């Protein structure tokens, strides 16, 4: 029952239209605006390079930017990950609100929690960035 691969999923419901959320989280270059602990973020083609707050460079390969489904996927390519895929989905709930789901799958499993834990905090932070603190459910 102990697995090498781990999966961590977080979500947040926001009183913000899905297109408005997507305009922020669907733009790979705007990561540092809403994801805590990112010192810098640059995008060249399908390569995004993130510098974490501790000074750790984290290169990523952008896999999917689908504005129709509002899905963003990327893969961290540093060697400590045997495998990694993160998926960010923005769902339109049809009433002017949205559900943002951030799923992290990785091997080793501990890295799913390292990234997924930070992603959960990032979703919390979206409330502040999008000025949606007073409404919505987590």
């Amino acid at each position, binding site marked *: *029952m102990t697995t090498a691969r781990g999966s961590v999923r977080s979500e947040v419901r926001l009183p913000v239209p899905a297109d408005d959320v997507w305009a922020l989280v669907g733009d790979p270059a705007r990561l540092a605006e809403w994801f805590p*602990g990112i010192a810098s973020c640059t995008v060249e083609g399908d390569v995004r390079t993130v510098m974490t707050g*501790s000074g750790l460079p984290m290169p990523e390969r952008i896999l999917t930017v689908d504005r129709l489904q509002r899905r963003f996927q990327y893969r961290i390519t540093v060697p400590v990950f*045997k495998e990694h895929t993160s998926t960010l989905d923005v769902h339109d709930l049809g009433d002017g609100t949205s559900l943002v789901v951030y799923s992290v799958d990785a091997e080793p499993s*501990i890295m799913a929690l390292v990234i997924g*834990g930070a992603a959960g905090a990032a979703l919390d932070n979206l409330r502040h960035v999008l000025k949606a603190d007073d409404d919505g459910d*987590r």
Partner: protein
Amino acid sequence: MSGRRKILFVTTDQQRYDTLGCNGGTVARTPVVDGLAAAGIRYERAHPQSVVCMPSRSTMLTGQHPTTHGVWMNGVPLPQDAPSVAAVLHDAGYRTALVGKAHFEPYLDPFLRFPENALGRVGTTPPGGAHRGFEHLEFATHNPVGPLHYSRWLLEQHPEAVGGFYPVLDGAMQVNALGGGETGAPQVKVNPIERDWYHTDWVADRTITWLQSLESDDDWFCWMSFPDPHHPWDPPESEMGRIDWRDVPLPVGYPERAAERERILDGKPRHWRLWYDGTLVSNYEAPADWVPATLTADQVREVNARNAVECELIDEALGRVLAAIEARGWGDDVDVLFTTDHGELQGDFGLLFKGPYHVDALMRLPLVWRPAPSAGRNPAVVTRPVGLVDLAPTFCAIAGLEPAGFMQGEALPTDDADADARGFDHVLTEWDSALFGVDVHVRTITVDGFVCSAYLPGAVHDGSEGELYDLGDDPLQQRNRWDDPAYRARRDELVAALWDAQPPARASRLRVEAPV
């Protein structure tokens, strides 16, 4: 002098009750703590409210049970606005410091999101003047690599020593199962570091430096928090000549025959044996790739020898701090409290490390309170159950303050008569873990003579399981009476008391944000 008593709060990490001479330990020599116990109050049944670091340390700081403060497993950060006894004391005019291991926030934090991890870059004074009520913070842990003050100091001053430590994580970032020493025991390594550079002496040195920075008439509360004797067991090799592991007796809780170990484990809820066999891991600080069934008697001896050396170094470091306090002329006005966050299996039942196992190895803690001599307290031994949840109100009482409303414990009793008069008749411990599809949930009550644990539904439990130990005839907790008809009435009474005593829960469950 202001007339208020000063407080030195000393914690270690993962130290068993029986590692102190005053508690009957025979391997480590601990004359300093033994002396405090002889002059003060020694507690024989002090329990943590959780047997892992972050929840237990959060209980010490907040004076609340984990269910209430919300840090339900390692990796769940204590909210930044959580109540703090240090803040209460600071607001009352105390100078406040925490030197050593804090661990209210997760360590594995490449994004440097948590203030504990970020402070090393800033200095020792947190932005805003205080963090959780502490105006001075200098952090250390077992890991010589990372953002904390000790790691930065070691890398800057003695970079050649960094590689001598045991690598806490392996190449895949998992808790390392690598064996070492002379027996190949897990999390053991020969560490060539000079003693003066090791974190135990560093914590004492930095504590002394902070104390020397104070004015003579300052009131102060100092939490000196040693990272040892928590694994890895890699004390300075120069000190290992103190104890030859070959001479270390096997713990009384370690059945030498595998069949006997397995018979005992099979009498307990399933996760005990599943971990022993290497098929279920529910504590993420233990190496997932290590199988307890492979543990040998010699490995138990070597782990215990190294652990004992670490306990001796702590005792000597504490002695230096007490001497510095005496030299400042504060000796009569300082209360000293010594304890730890939780215990260590250390060979009991053929296991090491910790996990959802509510037995004395993990729950019975060393706790010594040497009141300030000026308070005129008589030495005593308290046999009634007390908890780490009682520390925060004790600090308030020492400072002459009413306990804060958020605190759930009571000031520690000063003898059994005091304990009886104030109703110290039980103590609670809880466990919750949930990660990667495996969850375990346990609630435990300890009363005079019995330990009773009830399990909630989880990955390998259906909610009907439990453990009941009669400490009178089974002090090693090797015979589970949960299903014994002769104990049915006692069990039902304790289970009812357990649920009646549960503390209020947070409105919403906090999220696991990082490993450890």
